């Protein structure tokens, strides 16, 4: 649009021989501009949303270009794509981000407004400057939008997490072991929400083991479609025995750094959520 306006202005204001002389310069600039707009300058990150009858998700993000280049007032925008567990796109939205601005998305309200529904799935976030030639954006290099999910359940359970998986050029991770030791005191079940940021199908097998002995107490095999996700539940009363501490392992994770979200569900109904 800017180039069309420039062309009109030049034609109106300059003598025609000058306009003719500038033609090639103008075309070169326009090509460079469009190439720049198409260039991928932002890594796209993903995590899981929850949207049950009792649990809602709020997504918080900011125009980080302002914090990282405060002298160059940059307006930006966030493109957010929501997928269902089968990896089908449910909704794509775009939110403006003012200079030093931020944004919160109430996922339940958003889904209701657009008439879409899924109880969980992945969503991707990319934040890009409106003007890709903005000085701050150029200095940052390839950016990564950090955003946060706040989960809130009617029973008072809450969770706060950052994205951990990338979308795009990713590959499976083999022989994964969680960093978390899971104490079984008061625990009813261990639930995993696995995100898949890759554009390929994958199968993972998850194992719940006794931390002390390494004995396998439960296993689940799950197949993923591209950009799919899964809820994997291990009920403790279904295990052959309940040790004091558990550890999660998997033969693979579907994509780079896609550690599943770990939801500890307690006997009183409360849960907590964290990276695994």
């Amino acid at each position, binding site marked *: 649009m800017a180039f069309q306006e420039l062309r009109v202005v030049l034609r109106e204001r300059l003598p025609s021989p000058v306009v003719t002389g500038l033609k090639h310069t103008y075309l070169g600039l326009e090509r460079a501009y469009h190439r720049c707009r198409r260039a991928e300058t932002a890594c796209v990150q993903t995590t899981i949303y929850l949207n049950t009858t009792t649990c809602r998700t*709020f997504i*918080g*993000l*900011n*125009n*980080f270009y*302002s*914090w*990282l*280049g*405060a*002298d160059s007032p940059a307006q930006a925008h966030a493109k957010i794509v929501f997928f269902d567990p089968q990896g089908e796109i449910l909704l794509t939205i775009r939110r403006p981000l*003012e*200079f*030093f*601005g*931020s*944004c*919160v998305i*109430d996922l339940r309200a958003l889904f209701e407004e657009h008439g879409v529904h899924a109880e969980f799935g992945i969503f991707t976030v990319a934040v890009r400057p409106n003007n890709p030639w903005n000085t701050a954006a150029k*200095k*940052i*290099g*390839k*950016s*990564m*939008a*950090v*955003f*946060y999910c*706040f*989960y*809130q359940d009617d*029973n*008072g*359970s*809450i*969770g*706060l*997490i*950052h994205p951990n998986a990338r979308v795009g050029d990713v590959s499976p991770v083999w022989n994964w072991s969680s*960093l*978390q*030791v899971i*104490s079984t*005191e*008061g*625990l009813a079940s261990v639930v995993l929400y696995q995100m898949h940021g890759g554009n390929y199908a994958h199968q993972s097998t998850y194992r719940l083991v006794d*931390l002390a002995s390494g004995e396998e107490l439960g296993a689940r095999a799950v197949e993923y479609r591209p950009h799919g996700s899964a809820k994997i539940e291990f009920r403790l009363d279904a295990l052959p025995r309940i040790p004091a*501490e558990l*550890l999660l392992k998997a033969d693979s994770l579907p994509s780079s750094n896609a550690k599943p979200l770990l939801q*500890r569900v*307690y006997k*009183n109904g*409360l849960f*907590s*959520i*964290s*990276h695994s």
Partner: protein
Amino acid sequence: MILEGFLLSAVHTLPVRTFGSLGFSLRVGLTNDSQIDQRFATDYRIQAKVYSAEGKEIAFHPDLGLIRPGEKKTVVVDELADERRDHLVMFSLLPLRLLATSEDGIHCAISREELHHLVSCQGHQVEYRRPDGYSTGVLLAFPAYNYTKFHRDTPAVLVQAPKIFLSRDIDSYVTLINPSPVADYNQTHTIACSLTTADGAVVKAWRESVPPFRSVAISMKNVLGGKFDDRVQFFCFSGFCDTGLLLPLIFSYNARATTLAVEHTFAPFLYGSNLSGPARREVDKQIKRSRLFKPLMR
């Protein structure tokens, strides 16, 4: 490049705060993944120093056990400190392979490559627990803070936290820790703080001083004042300090259900591929004179 005279206790540190004031005890799950690069595989001896709410060292635990490569070990912090009060606990994982080469048992010579590997190859579980077993936590990994052998320049901390969610039941605590592996470290750092709305308007700006070996917890509801209803209100917290490093963690707390959630923030270099060295220093210069912080800088 070899770093001579590097404190063994600074190779792998984990500063954590307890939250007894909210009714939670603390447990940490420490991991040893040094074997990911076999050249640097080492056993770790766990040590911990406990600091009072006033920043005084009140206990030193020189040997809380050994973690072998590929293993995990859980430490219940209740047993190290009075959990009814809020403390700072500084864990150190002492690499025994380097201890064996040390002349005084305190310092070692370590390459930047090995140091980077030992700091970055693993994360630790920090878990806040209620008496009924309910627990919540976060995975953390940090290099030594406020240690000139590690940070060649005076480092700065820039916090971007679009994750302040407030309602009648829910508060957010911005916690800031001022740790160091150096025993006689004595610097207080003051951080400029601001809360902004979605359109970028500053609704509150203030300065917060954090003395050495102290952890402050700032209630965002107390900062803002007023009353909140059931609707979740959202703010972005920002912080900037260029005299030293403070470790920020954001806690959400539901006072009705006594539930807690915690997450760390990200340093600027994790937002952009070019943001290190001179580019990072330029970021700091610009943010310091920005409308978020300029009125607060001295």
